[in-house]
C-alpha cells in the first residue's frame, strides 16, 4: 500500500518532466524508442527502496524522496560559476573535459590538439549523427537497474571517447561533472570510453559543484570497454557539495590480457551511490578496484560492486576502506561471481570500516558465488574504532587528538590508496584525503 503510494508520489511529476524534456533529449527514432522503454521500466519500479535487497542500505525513497526536474541548459552566469569551481579542482597536465549541468561545455574543455588515435565527441553529437554502431554500445547498459534505466531515458549529454588500436595515451583524460548552482535540478550524463587493442589510457572523473550549488542531483553512467592487451588507470573523486545527491553507475568489460586499476574516493555529496559492474570477457585479465569513503555529518555513501568472472584465468582485487564520523553512513556491497568453467579465477575482496563516533554506521556486505571448483577466492570485512593505545602513544609524543587521529586515519586509508599504480593519481588521492582531514579541523 505504502509502496504504491510512494510510487505515485515520486513517479508522477517525473513522467511530466520526461514528457517536457523529451524534445530536448538527443537522439530520434530508435534512440527515442529506447528512451521511452527505459523510462517505462523506471516508472514501473520507481525509486529503489529498502525492500529491494540490492538497495537495502541505501533507500533512495527515504533519502532522496524524488527525482528533480531536468536542469535547464547552463546560461553564461552558470558557466562562469562552473569555471570558478573548476579552478579549485584543477589538475595539472591533464586533458580536461567538462560537463556543466549535464551538458558538454567545449569552452571550458581542452578540445584541441588531440593525440593521434584519440577521438572525443559529445554524446549528443553521436546520438544525432544518425545510425552509428556506438549507439548500441551506449545503450547496452542493464536497464533492469532502475537508476540505470532512468539514466538511459534522461541522459542529455556526455562524452564518447575512443582510443584506436595500438594507441597508448600519454596525457590523462579528466572528465569533470560540475553543477553550476542554479535552481536545484537533476543532471543526467552518459559517457563511453572505448579502448581498442594494445591501448593504454588514464581517466580521472571528478564530480563537483559550484559554491552556490546546493541540493542538486547528479546521475551519471559510464560505459567502458577495455580491449585485448589494453590497460586503463581510473580514478574517481566525488567532491560534490554537501547537500548534493550523486547516483552513478559504471559498466566495465575487459577483453583478454587487459588490466584495470581503479580507485574511487568519496568525500563529498549528501547521498551518493556508485554501482559498478565488471565483466571479464577475455582470459588472462586482471582488475584492482579499490576505494575509500571519508564521510561525516549526515553523509551517506554507498559503493556497490559486482565482479563477474565469466571466463577462466582472471584475477580481481578489491580493497575498500571507510572512515565514518558523526552520524554518517557508509555502505560497501561487493559481489564476486565465478561462472561455471571460469577456472583459475583468483578473486579477493577486503573491506574495513573505521567508526569515529558512536552514531556512525558502516554496512559491509561481501558476497561470493562460486560455480567453478579450481579457484582461489576470499573475502573479509571488519569494523572498528581507532585503537586507544595507538592514540595514547601518539599523544604522549606530542600530537593533539586531531593530529593523532589524522595520522591513524591516513594510515588506515593508505592501504587502499597505495594500490593506485600511477604515481600522479596516487598523489591526487592523497591530497583529496588530506583536504578532508584538514576540513575536519
Amino acid at each position, binding site marked *: 500500500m505504502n509502496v504504491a503510494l510512494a510510487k505515485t508520489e515520486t513517479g508522477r511529476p517525473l513522467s511530466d518532466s520526461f514528457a517536457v524534456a523529451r524534445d530536448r533529449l538527443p537522439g530520434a527514432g530508435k534512440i527515442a524508442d529506447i528512451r521511452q522503454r527505459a523510462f517505462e521500466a523506471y516508472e514501473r519500479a520507481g525509486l529503489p527502496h529498502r525492500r529491494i535487497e540490492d538497495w537495502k542500505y541505501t533507500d533512495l525513497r527515504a533519502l532522496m524522496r524524488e527525482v528533480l526536474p531536468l536542469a535547464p541548459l547552463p546560461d553564461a552566469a552558470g558557466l562562469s560559476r562552473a569555471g570558478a569551481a573548476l579552478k579549485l579542482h584543477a589538475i595539472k597536465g591533464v586533458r580536461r573535459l567538462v560537463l556543466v549541468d549535464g551538458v558538454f561545455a567545449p569552452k571550458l574543455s581542452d578540445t584541441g590538439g588531440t593525440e593521434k588515435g584519440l577521438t572525443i565527441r559529445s554524446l549528443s553529437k553521436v546520438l544525432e549523427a544518425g545510425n552509428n554502431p556506438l549507439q548500441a554500445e551506449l545503450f547496452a547498459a542493464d536497464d533492469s537497474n532502475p537508476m540505470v534505466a532512468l539514466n538511459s531515458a534522461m541522459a542529455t549529454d556526455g562524452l564518447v571517447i575512443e582510443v584506436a588500436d595500438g594507441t597508448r595515451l600519454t596525457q590523462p583524460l579528466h572528465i569533470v561533472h560540475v553543477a553550476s548552482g542554479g535552481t536545484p535540478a537533476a543532471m543526467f550524463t552518459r559517457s563511453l570510453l572505448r579502448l581498442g587493442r594494445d591501448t593504454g589510457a588514464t581517466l580521472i572523473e571528478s564530480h563537483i559543484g559550484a559554491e552556490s550549488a546546493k541540493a542538486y542531483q547528479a546521475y551519471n553512467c559510464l560505459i567502458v570497454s577495455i580491449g585485448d592487451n589494453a590497460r586503463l588507470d581510473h580514478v574517481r573523486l566525488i567532491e560534490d557539495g554537501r547537500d548534493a545527491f550523486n547516483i552513478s553507475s559504471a559498466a566495465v568489460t575487459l577483453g583478454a590480457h587487459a588490466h584495470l586499476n581503479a580507485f574511487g574516493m568519496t568525500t563529498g555529496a549528501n547521498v551518493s551511490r556508485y554501482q559498478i559492474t565488471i565483466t571479464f570477457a577475455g582470459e588472462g585479465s586482471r582488475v584492482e578496484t579499490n576505494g575509500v569513503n571519508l564521510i561525516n555529518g549526515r553523509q551517506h555513501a554507498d559503493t556497490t560492486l559486482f565482479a563477474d568472472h565469466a571466463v577462466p584465468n582472471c584475477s580481481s582485487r578489491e580493497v575498500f576502506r571507510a572512515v565514518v564520523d558523526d552520524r554518517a553512513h557508509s555502505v560497501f556491497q561487493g559481489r564476486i561471481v565465478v561462472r561455471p568453467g571460469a577456472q583459475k579465477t583468483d578473486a579477493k575482496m577486503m573491506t574495513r570500516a573505521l567508526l569515529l563516533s558512536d552514531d556512525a554506521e558502516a554496512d559491509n556486505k561481501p558476497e561470493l558465488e562460486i560455480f567453478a571448483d579450481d579457484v582461489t577466492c576470499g573475502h573479509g570485512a571488519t569494523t572498528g574504532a581507532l585503537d586507544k593505545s595507538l592514540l595514547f602513544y601518539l599523544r*604522549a609524543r606530542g600530537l593533539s587528538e586531531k593530529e593523532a587521529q589524522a595520522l591513524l586515519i591516513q594510515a588506515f586509508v593508505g592501504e587502499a590508496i597505495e594500490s593506485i599504480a600511477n604515481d600522479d593519481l596516487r598523489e591526487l588521492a592523497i591530497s583529496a584525503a588530506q583536504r578532508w582531514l584538514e576540513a575536519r579541523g
Partner: protein
Amino acid sequence: MPLLEVKNLQVRVEDREILHGLSLTVNKGEVHAIMGPNGSGKSTLSHVIAGRPDYEVTGGQILFKGEDLLEMAPDERAAKGVFLAFQYPVEIPGVATMNFLRTALNAQRKARGESEFSTPDFLKKVRDVAKSLNVPQDMLKRGVNVGFSGGEKKRNEILQMALFEPSLCILDEMDSGLDIDALRIAADGVNALRSPDRAMVVITHYQRLLNYIVPDFVHVMSKGRVVKSGDKELALELEASGYTQFEDAA
C-alpha cells in the same frame, strides 16, 4: 623548585584503587629508580604522569615545574618536557617512522611557540641521533615499530627521547624483553642523555638494569605506595633479600 612533585597520589582503574597515596619528589639532574614487585603500581604511576586516559585520579596532585600536570592533556605534557619510554611500544602500521618523528617533534615545538624544523635540519638531526644509538636507517623507513625486535623497539624509544630532549624521562621497564647486549646498547643511550638539566625515573623489577643505569635514589613500591627510599645500595639489598619483607610491611 623540584622538577616533579607527586603528592599523596590516589589512582583508580575501573573500580580498583591502584595507588593509595604515593609521594615522590624528583629534582633536575637526578636519576631515580623505582623498584617493586609486579602489581605494586609502578607502571600505573608512569602512565598517570604521562596522562593515559583510562586512569582516574581520585586524590593528590602532580606538579611539574610547579604546574598542575593533571590539568594537562598528554600532548601538552609532552610539549612541556615529559617523556614516557613505553614498556611495550605499540606498532603503528602505515605510519612511517620518519613521518611520525617529524610530526611529533614539530607538534611539540609548535606548542612551545618554537619554529618547526625544516626538512634538511630534521633529517640531519635524526641521522645524527640514529647513528649515535646504532639505529639503522632502514628501521626509520619502516612503519613505526612494525616488525621491530624487542631491542629495536626500545632503541626507537630512546631515539625519540634523544630527539625530543625532554626534561623528565620516565623509563617503564626498559629492560623487559631485552638480552644483555640489547640492554647495554639501550642503557648507553640513556646514560648519554643524563644531564644536570634532565631528570630520569627508571622503573624496573630487577636490579640488573641499575648496574648499567646507576641511580642516585632508589624507591621501593609496594601495594601502591613508596615504602622505602634510599641510595643505590638499597637496590643491592633488594637483590639479596627480595621484595617479601616490603609486601608484609605495606
